[in-house]
């Protein structure tokens, strides 16, 4: 199910040349902001939860997820070089599975690790805030990577649709329409974070069981459907 060569090529496509630096800029910014906040406001559990929840989980994880998830397959389909990969005797679902693993790994490294560091900088893991948000970021990375990898195989405008989902649906609709929150990766991962922290700082609108089932279902279904899409991929020219 896992093909090391495909994995190596995907890593190169995602992190090769200067791209790792650009991907790394976001986490560095988060850590810089946490340092500034700590210097300005001192250690405060509520502030830490606000910064990690608002900036790390709501903005940074989805954006890294979009870049890694769609970047794992999108550009190859876009410029047509995916043909060379598809013509090799590798099962299409294996390609998707491998690329998913890489996308999850990249998203986790660039979002969960800085979240943990930022959490420790902000309040030294008081009330388990840092660990809880790190777990949330880890869980969200898996779902986001699967979801955006699927988008990458479905549409040529995957990045835009991914961002519309992450920023408009989760952030805007989620704050206006309570029902939209039930269908949001962010809330599902917050449910897990709530369980880990056990305090009142982190709350989610979704129960833990619902969240876990939905997370697993989205990840598995998205991966399966992406595999199916890749089996019947039509290559179109530049529009």
């Amino acid at each position, binding site marked *: 199910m896992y093909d090391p060569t495909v994995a190596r090529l995907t890593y190169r496509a995602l992190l090769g040349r200067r*791209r790792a630096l*650009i991907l790394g800029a*976001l986490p560095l*910014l988060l850590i810089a*902001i946490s340092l*500034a*906040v700590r210097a*300005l*406001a001192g250690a405060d559990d509520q*502030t830490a939860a*606000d*910064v990690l929840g*608002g*900036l790390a989980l*709501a*903005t*940074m994880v989805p*954006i890294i997820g*979009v*870049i890694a998830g*769609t*970047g794992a397959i*999108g*550009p190859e389909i*876009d*410029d047509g070089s995916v043909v060379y990969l598809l013509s090799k005797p590798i099962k299409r679902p294996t390609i998707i599975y491998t690329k998913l693993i890489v996308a999850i790994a990249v998203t986790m490294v660039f979002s969960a690790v800085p979240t943990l560091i930022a959490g420790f900088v902000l309040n030294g893991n008081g009330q388990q805030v840092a660990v809880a948000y790190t777990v949330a970021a880890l869980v969200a990375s898996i779902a986001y990577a699967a979801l955006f990898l699927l988008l990458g195989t479905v549409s*040529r*405008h*995957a*990045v*835009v649709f991914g*961002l*519309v989902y992450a*920023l*408009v649906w989760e*952030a*805007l609709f989620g704050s206006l329409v309570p029902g939209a929150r039930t269908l949001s990766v962010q809330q599902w991962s917050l449910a897990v974070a709530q369980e880990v922290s056990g305090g009142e700082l982190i709350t989610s609108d979704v129960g833990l069981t619902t969240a876990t089932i939905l997370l697993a279902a989205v990840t598995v279904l998205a991966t399966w459907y992406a595999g199916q899409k890749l089996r019947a991929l039509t290559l179109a020219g*530049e*529009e």
Partner: protein
Amino acid sequence: MATEQPMQTPATAPGDTRIHNIGYRSYDGPRLGRSYARLSLYSQSLRGSYGLGRSVKSKVLPMLLFVVMCVPAAIMVAVAVATKAKDLPVDYTRYAIIMQAVISLYVASQAPTSVSRDLRFKTVPLYFSRPIETADYVRAKFAALASALFILTAAPLLVLYVGALLAKLDFSDQTKGFAQGLVSVALLSLLFAGIGLVIASVTPRRGFGIAAVIAVLTISYGAVSTLQAIAETQSSGDAIAWIGLFSPITLIDGVQSAFLGASSAFPGGVGPSNGEGVVYVLFSLGLIAASYGLLVRRYKKVGM
């Protein structure tokens, strides 16, 4: 005949070689020159930003964003007319700040389509084989994206203005507000177009360009508003205004609340004072100039 041929050839050959005229007509029409080429590039890029002259698929997104931008304005107007309100529910200057997510998405999706494909298919040197120069290309693309953004941001204001007049709100008051709103969105268009193009021109990959533009716009706003909220709870009011300098949308917010009579969206509702407002204006103009300079430098390199 056969005997004459060798006698003539040595006589004419040296010094009389010429390219035979094989019947191509030379062009003797008017040469429209550099400014015409620049204008064409501008109008094509502007049309392209709304998908005109491109496939149906590429019309969907810009048109959709345009509609999403205008619909809330239409609803507000309808409500104001129906309830015979004394004032519009939203200031002209505030509208773009509220709809910033849509504007950011538009810049992010259209800046890369405007420049990335030229880079990816290496057509940039072909442009410069025409009588246009680096600065012309940059100016045309910059102006086109800024105009497209201006259309996107000014159209809902026009809807609001027309609706306000239909609802018989105070004419001079509304006209003043509308004019202030137009100035602010003009500045916003230039600033966002500059930032979007600089980022998009670095990468030939469209998807990566989109993500990079949106990351810069939203993360900087998220970071700035987080820091401002904390500065507010720490009651260090001076810091709020200075922090606002570091993200494009708060920059515009600061400029318009200092000089264009807008109420600030900063935490606490306190915008920059006039002195700080001057810094805001200089900073935004500096950013626009810097992005122009960076674009020219970038295209000096890739135009070879």
